Structures are given as structure tokens and as C-alpha cells.
């Protein structure tokens, strides 16, 4: 069967005015080398551990305000749709306030974890905070 699309083209049923992503990171990925991954981590300033606190936990506001790396943070996002295709590490999530977002496709382990978090957010209707880098992909997710 021929592949026709590498990014989702439809909006979820409830999102009448939804917007599809322009398709950053749409090409089928090749696994990065260790050096490439290390360089990517260094470039984004990715934290080795979480710094934000769950809503309602003492100190959450102060820590959340101080957190942040080079990417753009979206907070309080509800995930209402998911998409994947028979390509290596190509999965997307959809939020009514953010549109379609591709999950970072660097390594199997990290990719699986991000997909799990997005899927749990969809299943439980719990909010997420996520970090998006310049390539348009989601590199970090907090599921509350």
C-alpha cells in the first residue's frame, strides 16, 4: 500500500475550526547517532529531570515560573486526538488550543514514553504542559 501522508490531515470531529500543522518534521526519521542526540540535548538545554510541580502542590507556581529552556512551553493543554502512521516514530497529538503537534522522533524509548503520556492525556482527559522546539516537535511532556 502506498504511503500518502506523513502528517495528519483531518481535524478531530469536535474541532470544527481546528488547524492542521504545516508539517514540520514530516519526513521519515532516521535514528540519530549518540553524538547527534547529545548535541540536540545540549542545544535545547533540556533538563535532565522535571522541574515543574503538579498543580496544587505547594511551591508549584514559583517552580513553574522558573522552569523553561530554549523551546516554547504550552501549558494546561487538553489532548483530544491522536494520529500515527506506519512509518518509523511518526505520531502526533492534537489539542484544540495548539493544533496538531508531532512528537519528537529521536529514539524509540523517548518516543514511546512521549506517546504514552500523550495517549494517557487523551484517555484520562488530564491536562499536559509540553515543550515545543523550533523544528515544531514536542520534546517534553508533563502529564498532570
Amino acid at each position: 500500500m502506498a504511503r500518502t501522508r506523513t502528517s495528519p490531515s483531518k481535524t478531530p470531529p469536535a474541532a470544527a475550526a481546528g488547524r492542521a500543522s504545516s508539517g514540520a518534521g514530516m519526513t521519515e526519521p532516521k535514528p540519530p547517532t549518540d553524538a547527534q542526540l547529545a548535541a540536540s540535548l545540549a542545544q535545547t538545554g533540556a533538563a535532565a529531570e522535571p522541574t515543574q510541580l503538579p498543580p496544587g502542590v505547594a511551591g508549584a507556581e514559583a517552580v513553574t515560573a522558573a522552569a523553561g529552556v530554549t523551546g516554547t512551553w504550552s501549558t494546561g493543554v487538553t489532548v483530544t486526538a491522536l494520529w500515527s502512521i506506519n512509518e518509523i516514530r511518526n505520531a502526533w497529538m492534537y489539542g484544540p488550543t495548539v493544533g496538531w503537534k508531532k512528537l519528537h522522533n529521536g529514539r524509540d524509548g523517548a518516543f514511546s514514553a512521549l506517546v504514552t503520556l500523550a495517549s494517557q492525556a487523551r484517555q484520562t482527559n488530564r491536562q499536559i504542559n509540553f515543550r515545543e522546539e523550533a523544528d515544531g516537535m514536542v520534546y517534553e511532556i508533563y502529564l498532570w
Partner: protein
Amino acid sequence: MPLNQPMDLGDLRSELERTGTPWQISYTSMTALTEEERVLRLGVPPTPGLDVEHLEDSREAAAAAAASATAASVGAPTSFDLRNVGGVNYGTPVRDQANCGSCVAFGVAGTMEGVARYTRRASALPVDLSEAHLFYCHGRRAGARCGTGWWPDQALNASRDTGVTFEDYYPYTAGDQDCSGLNADWPNHLAKVTAWQYLNNNPAGMKEYISTYGSVTACFDVYQDFFSYGGGVYRHIAGSYAGGHCVTLLGYDDGQSCWIAKNSWNAGWGEGGYFRIAYGECRIESYQTCGVQGVNLRTWWPDQLILGLWSNEADANVWAYGAVRGWLKLDGSTVTTNQAMLLELAAAKAGSRPVGLFEDSGSVQQLYAW
């Protein structure tokens, strides 16, 4: 330990008034004790080779050095109090060493507890460590007894190399013991210092450590007037030398030029068990000061509700936030194990069900999801 000459509280009151009342005198939990009992509330040997008559020779210079080593010079806030960091109290309760010169165990355990909570930003972390394990097991092996006292550096080496169990595995009671009260399962219910360093004569470093890690351990010279301290910024006003003492420093204030300390004389003494002491006083910066950089735990955390899950672009780097425990990394030895743990925790989270986590050295090694 030698017995000390008691002081006349009337003379102390007069001297405080004459000097502008820098701090308040009070009838404290220490006031009614005999000199024999008071000296057992201390517990740091004198600095070898240092003449008691000359302990305060460098008092003014030390105060000036601590004041000039501003917190701002090391990028730290101008004041810090572990009991109120953005409205959150990361401190643990004031204890009572009672009739034993075990202050070092309390000063070190208090520091470890504060660091364990603050570095995890987990204000409710149930980390009540066993001073009895520290003093009656590790200290005893090093020759420490209630009547001799001990040194923080030795206690910290033991806390790093062997670890300290929790209070429920060896509850503290005052009086020399042979370590027989220690629960045999203590290696599975343990806190370990990851690393520590001397901060003697380094007030800027002390401020940096306190504001970064939450607490440091410090020794100072106690004079007779200190037993009657009821509040304010303490300075030695009157009374003879009583002995060396060890406490946990959990704050400082460059505006007031003072350190904030947690004592181990119960909450009926001082400012609810705490005190403030002026920069440069009683060799607080130079006697022996030690900073702890982290505390690893090895224990079960039962009945944790998972409030958050997190991952980023790094492989096998998944963390879970337990309601009491705070953020904890899932075992990352293999991606598959990591993913299995994530899925089980996600299932528990989805159902708002409690989990049991076994933590060792900063990561989950085993879990139950009920």
C-alpha cells in the same frame, strides 16, 4: 566534659540592657537544668590546640568577613529561610537530644532531612532520620559517647559511606547504647549523603549551600548566656565558655547579618526551638561547618498517588511525581523496564489508585500498582 560555672541571670539581664538588648532573655527549657545536665545538651569537643581564653580574638574580623561575603556575591538571595521558601516550609520538626551530648547526630540528621526535602522540592517528605543510629552505632564505633561528644565530619563520612536509617527503625532515647536497638532491616530503609564538603571560614559558600541545598551543619562555642536565649539575634554578652555545640543552619539574612539555626533542645527553647546568631559570633563560621550536596534514599514509599508523569527527548528518562515523595526517576537500566513501569504507573494514575514505590539512589527499582 568539664562542669561550668553557673551565671547570674540578673547580671545577664543588666548586661543585655546595657548593650541595647540585642536579644531577649527567657526562662527556657534549659534554665531549670543543673550544670551537669546542661553540659550534656552540647557535644562537640573543643578545637584541638585552641585556648578557650582566645576563642573570641577574631570575633570582629569574622563578623566583618561574613557580612562582606554577601549572598549576592555568589548569586544567592539576600536572605533565605528553609521554613519559608516562597511560602513553603521544607524544614523538619525540632527534636530534643535531652541528656546526651549527641548534638552532632541531631545537627547532621537535621541537615540531611532539610536537604532531602528541599532538593526534591517535597515539603511533606516523611524523612525523619535516626539520630540513635548515627550516634549510638556510627558514633560509638568512632569512640563517641554521651559524655564525649563527636564531630560532624565523622558523622557525615558515616552518613555517606554507610547511611542513616529512619527514626522508626531506631528511635532515639538519651543515654549511651550499644546499637542493639537497630532494626535488622535497616539497609533497606536508609538515607545516604551523596557528597559533602568543608565550608569552614567560607561564609559565602555557606550561604550558597544553604540557599541551594537547604541546610548546612555548623558548630559554635556556647557561653552560659546562650542557655537563656529567648529570641532575637544572639551575640555573646556575658557568661563563661560552656562547650562546643552542633546545629543545623537552615537560613541566613544579610539584612540582619545573622544565621538562622535549628537547635536540638526541643521547641520550648529559643524561638520555638530555633535561634538567630549574628555573623562572626562564637566561631559559627570557623569551628567546623559542613555542606551536604544531596541525600539518596533507599526505602519503600507506600500508598503514593501519582500526581504527575514526565518525560523528554532523552531515552529512559521518565519520572513520576508521588503525592508525598515528589519526583522520582523510574529505573532506566533498559528502555523496556522503563516503559513497563511507566505503563503501570499511568494505569494507577488513570484510576487515581495508590502505588507502592521502592526507591534506591534516586530511582524506582520496584513498584506495586493497586
